[in-house]
C-alpha cells in the first residue's frame, strides 16, 4: 500500500507488492549449469533377443512406459539389420547405440555423443563377465529367471547414467552377502 502513496499514480504496484508469498528463495545456481538430462551419458541398457523380446531394460532418463516398447522395437530392428563386419555403434535419433551380441542375445546401450563408444562396448563385456561369474556360465534363461538379481548387479555398475563400479568382486559383494543371509 505504501508503494502507491510513494509513487503516486502507480496502480499496478499496490497489488503486486501486497501479495508476495512466502515461497523459499530460489537456489543460488550457476546460470550455466546444464539441465540434468545433459549429464546423463548412458541413456539406457537393454537386453533383447533376436526375436525382439526384451529381456531386461533399464532407463537412466525418463521415458514414458508407453513409448518404451516402440523404442525397444526400433533398437532391435537397428541392431538386427547390422552385419557382423559392420561397426558396433549405430546412430539412433540424437544419441548412439552401442551393441554387442552374445548368441541370440543382444545387449544394447544407448549413449550420448560425448561418451566414449569403445569404453561402453567393453563395459558391456565386463557386465557379461560379471554375470558369468555370478551365475557360473550365464545363459539367457538365467537372466530371465533372475531378473531381479541381474538388475541388482547392473545397479551396482551403472547409476544415473554413469559407470560407478567396474571391479567384479565389488560389484557382486552386496548381492552375494544377501544370498548368504537368505540361505542361512
Amino acid at each position, binding site marked *: 500500500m505504501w508503494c502507491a502513496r510513494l509513487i503516486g499514480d502507480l496502480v499496478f504496484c499496490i497489488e503486486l507488492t501486497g501479495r508476495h508469498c512466502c*515461497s523459499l*528463495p530460489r537456489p543460488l545456481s550457476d*546460470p550455466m549449469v546444464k539441465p540434468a538430462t545433459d549429464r546423463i551419458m548412458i541413456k539406457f541398457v537393454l537386453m533383447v533377443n533376436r526375436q525382439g523380446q526384451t529381456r531386461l531394460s*533399464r532407463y537412466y532418463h525418463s521415458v514414458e512406459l508407453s513409448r518404451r516398447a516402440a523404442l525397444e522395437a526400433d533398437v532391435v530392428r537397428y541392431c538386427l539389420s547390422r552385419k557382423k563386419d559392420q*561397426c558396433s555403434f549405430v546412430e539412433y535419433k540424437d544419441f548412439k547405440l552401442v551393441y554387442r551380441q552374445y548368441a541370440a542375445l543382444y545387449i544394447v546401450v544407448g549413449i550420448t555423443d560425448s561418451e566414449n563408444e*569403445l569404453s561402453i562396448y567393453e563395459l558391456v563385456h565386463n557386465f557379461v563377465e560379471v554375470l558369468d561369474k555370478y551365475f557360473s556360465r550365464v545363459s539367457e534363461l538365467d537372466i530371465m529367471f533372475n531378473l531381479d538379481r541381474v538388475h541388482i548387479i547392473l545397479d551396482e555398475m551403472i547409476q544415473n547414467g554413469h559407470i560407478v563400479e567396474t571391479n567384479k568382486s565389488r560389484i557382486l559383494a*552386496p548381492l552375494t552377502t544377501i544370498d548368504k543371509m537368505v540361505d542361512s
Partner: protein
Amino acid sequence: MSDVVEKTLTALPSLLSLDSHPGSAKLSSTSKLGNLIRGITELTSKHEEEKLIQHELLAIKEQVSSPNTTMMKELMVRSIYCEMLGYEASFSYIHAIKLAQQGTVLEKRVGYLAVSLFLNESHELLLLLVNTVLKDLQSTNLIEVCMALTVVSQMFPKDMIPAILPLVEEKLNHPKEIIRRKAVLALYKFYLIAPNQVQHIHNKFRKALCDKDPGVMTASLHIYLQMIQENPEAYKDLTPSFVTILKQVVGGKLPMDFNYHTVPAPWLQIQLLRILSLLGKNDQSTSEVMYEVLDESLQRAEMNHNITYAILYECVKCIYTIHPKSDLLEKAAKCIGNFVLSPKINLKYLGLKALTYVVQQDPKLALQHQMTIIECLDHPDLIIKRETLELLFRITNGQNVTVIVEKMLEFLCISEDDHTTIDLVGKVAELAEKYPLKYNEWFIETMNTVFSLGGDMMQPDIPNSFLKLLSEGFDSVEEDRKLRLFAVNSYIPLLRGEPGKLPQRFLQVISWVLGEYSHLREDLEPAEVLSLLAKLLDMKNSSSETKSWVLMAMTKLCKGGADASVTQEVSETYSSSLDTVLRQRAHELQYLSQDPELRARVLPRGAKPETLEVDSSLSFLDRFVSEALAAGAAPYKPPHQRQEELDQSKALSLEPYGLSLPISMSSCSITDRQSPTLLSMSSGLSGDTLKLDGIKRVWGREGYLAQREPVEEAAQVEVPSPIQSPGRQGEGDSLHSQTPTQTPTPEPEQEKQQLASSLFVGLASQSSVSLMGKSEPMPQRFRRKAKGQGLGSSFIANEQISSSLISPPSAVDNLLCNNLLDSNNASELAEQTSQLSQSLTTANGTCHAEAELTESDTKGCNPALRRDNCVVAAGPGPHNDPGRLTEVCLDSYLPAELSGLSHSEIAPLCANQSLNLSACHVQKEDSLILVVFIMNSSESAIQQIRLVSITVGQYSLTVKRPAVHVEVVGTVSYQLPAGTSQSLQFSYKVPLTSFIRPFVVSTEEYGTMWLSFSHDTKQNLTLINDNQEPLTATLNALKKKLQLHVVEVIGMEGIVACRLLQDLPCLMHCRVNAGWLAVWLRSPVPDLPDCLIYHCQRALQSL
C-alpha cells in the same frame, strides 16, 4: 571375447528342458513366475502377449492386495516383467514401497529395486519411501544401509534431502569401504538434483578424493567431473592430485581386482583423463603439470585390446584439448593414424571421431589422412560415412565447400533416418549460406535440394534465413539481381512440373520469392505466375499456412487487367474461408488488387527491409490500461506472479526455483572492426538472438570481400595433385608412407586423388601458414581453434561460460553513453598514437620484444599503453617463482593516478616463453579500468637470470549487455627480435558488480522510471536478522557490497537504485515479508535484473 559366454548362450536349451536347467534350479518351473516366463517365451504375436499380460496383471492384482501374502517378492518380479513389456502395473507401486519397508533382506532389496524401476524422480509416492530410507540408514545391518544408500543415489525427492543429509554425511566416515563409496554416490546424486543443498560439504568431497580406498576415490571423481565442468577455475589446485592418481593407476599400483583384461582400472583412467582435459583447457601452467603422465599413458597403452584403445582415444582428446605440446601432439597424431588405418571397424570409427575432434584445432591433420578419409566416404557402413561427413563439415572452407556439400547431399538421398536428415540438412544449409556468393547458381540449387529433401522436418530457421539473405542482398546490386533472378528461374519449372510433391516449406519459400522478385524476369507475364500460384491453392495437400503465403504473393503480383479474373476468383473463394488468416489475406488481395495506388504504398516493390522498432514496454497502451483500470478492470499480473499465487493456493511450495538467467550470457559487442576471433565466437554463441544474425555478419560487407579472394586463388591453383600441394611437403614422414607415389596411377585411384585434392584444397594453404610458426605452435593453434568455434556449435556449447565482452578499444564507440569521453581517461586515450610499438628493453639489453596490441586496427581509440610507466626495467636477480614475483612486484607498476584507488587482486592471465600477462581492475567513479601488465619473461640461458620488464596497459571497460560475469578477451601481438610475430590471447573475468555504481534519484523520479522499465525479476532474499532493523541492516549490507543507493525506506519497504556503467539504471523495490526480503528489480536493460539478483544473493550469503 569370452568364449565361455559365447558357448553357453548359444546352447540355449529348448523350452521343454526348462526344468533341468541349472539357472532355473532355484525356481520350480511350476511356480507362477516360471509360468509367466514360459508364457512370454512362447509368445508369437503382439495380440497374444497382450492377452497373457492382462491376465497376469489381474492375477497379480488379486493376490497382491490379499493380506499375508508370502509371495510378495515373486509378485513384484512379475510386475516388473509386465512393466518391462510395456504394460502399466501402477497398482503394485504402493506394494513395492511396502515391501521395501517390511520385507526381509532380499525382499527389501527387490522392493527398492521395484521402486527405482517403477517410479520416476518426481513421483509423489516417493515421499512414502523417505521414512523407510531413514530407518534403513540407521540400521545396524550393513546390507540395509547399503541398499538405502543405493536407492538414494538413484532417486530421492529433492525436498527431502535435508532430512537424510546428516545421516549420509555421517556415513562418509564409516569404516567399510562400500558404505563410504555409496555415501559419496548419494551425495553426487544430491549435487545433481539440488547443488545448493550440498554446497557446505565441499571439503568432505576432498576427503573422499583422498580416501585410502580407490573405490571411494573413484566415486568422488563423478562429483569432481561435474563441478569442474561447471567451474574449472575453482579446482585448478587439484590438478597435481589428479595427475598423481592417474600416474598410480597407470603404473599398476591398484589392487589386481581393479584390472580389466590386465589393464588397470580403464574406466577410472578415462574419467581422470576427462577431468584433466577440462582443467588443462586454455591453461598453460596447469597443462604443463600433466604432460608427463599423458605421455606415460600413451606409451603404456600398447597392448592390443579394445579397452586400451578406448583409453588412448580419451588420451588423444585430452592432448588436443589442453595447452599444446609439440611432441605429445605428434604422438597423438600418430595414434590417431593407427586408429584410422586399423582394419577393425570399431577402431576406424573411433579414429574418425577423434579426427573430427582434432581437426578443429589442427586441420592439417586431415591432410595426412586424406586418402583414408576418401575411402571412408565410400564405406559400405553408413555410420562410418556419416562420421566422415561430420569430419568434412569441420574442415570446410571456401574452396572445397561445393565438393563437401555434394557428398552430403548424396548421403541425404540414401539416408532414411529423420534425425540424420534434419541434422545434415541443417549443416548443408549452414555451409551454403556461409559461402553463398561464390556461385549463385550453386547456392540456389543447393538450397533447392535442401528444401526438397529436408521437407517439413527441417529447422524452421533455414527457410527464414534463406529468405532474409535474398532480401537483404549484398554489396553489389547486380549480384543481388542475378541471384534473385536465378532463384525465380529455378522455381518456375518446379511449379510447372509437379508442385504437389514439394514440401510445404519449399512452396512457401517459392511463393514468397515469386511474389517479390518474379518481375525481375522480363519475359515472364505476371499472369502466368499468378495462375501457377493459383494452382497451388487448389492442391489438396497444401496447408493453410502455405495458402496464406501464396495469397500474399498473389497480392504482391496482381495488377488488375488481365489478372483480375484469377485474383477475383481466388479472393472470392477464400473470403468465406473458415480460416481467419486466409480470410484476411483474401480480403487484402481483393482490395489491393482493385486499388493499385494503395498497393504501391502498402507493398512497395524492391523495398529494402527496414528494421522494426519495437516498443517492448508497450507504453503506447498506457492510456488504454489506465482507462480500463479506472473502469474497474483487474490489474495485470505477470506470469510468474500468477504462478506464485497458484502455487500458494495449492500448497506450500517446497520446490526451489531455478534462477532464470538466460542460458546464453553472451552478447559481444560486435562491430565491423573487431577481430575475427571475437566475431566467430559471438556468432556461435548467439543463443537468444536468432541465428540469422550470425549469418548476416559472416558475410556482411566485409565478409563478402573476404570470400572473394579465395575464389580467385582457387582458380589459379587449378586442382593441384595432392602430392604436389605445397602444404603436404612439410607434413613429415607419416605422410609419405601413405600416399601412393607410383607414377602410373590406376584409374579409380586417380579419381580418388582428384577427389582428395578438391576436398582438401583449402587446408593446404592453411597449413602453409602454420608451418611458419612450427617452432611456436601455440598462437596458431589458438587462431584455428577460434575458427572451429565458429563452425561447430556443439563445440561451443561447452566452451567459455559467460562472455559478455568488451574488447577495450572497439568498445569505446559502442558505449551506450558518450560521456566517457569527458573523463580523464578518455582524453588520455585520444592522445595515444594509433600505432603502438613498444620496445621492451631489458636492463642489459639481451632481449628485445616489441609489444603491439592487435586491437590497434581500430582508429583513434587505442589501448592506453601508458608511456611514462611502460618501460620499466628491473632485474630482481635470480627468481624461481614467476607467479610470486608477479604478485609481489606488480603493485608498484600501477599507474600513478590509479594507485590511490582500490584495485582487485592482480591475477596472472597467461604466459608463454617470452611474455607473462597479469591484470587487475580498478573501480573509478564513472568507469572501470582494466590494467594489464605485460611482462617480458625471456630467460637468458647463460646467466640464469630472469630479466623482467613490465609494460602496463590501461583500458576503460563498459558493459553493453549484462551477464553475471563479464569476460574480456584480447590478444597481444608482439615481435621477436628475429622478426617473427607472435600473439598471445588472454581472457579476464570481471564480476558484474564492478560495473555497478550508486544511482542517486528522488522518490518521484524513481516512480516515473519504475513504470517505464520493461524488464523485471522477483525473488525472495534472506534477511539479516541479528539486528533490530532487519530491513535497514540488509539494505546497508547490500549497499556496502554492491554500491547501491538507498532512495528511501518507509516501514517495511524500501526502494534502492543503482546504475550499470555508464547510465543504465536498475531499480529495486524491497519489502519484508514473512522473514524474507521480497525483492523486485526493474530495468530497461534485459538480463540486468537477473544478474543483479544473483549478485545480491551472493552478497547476502557471504555475510
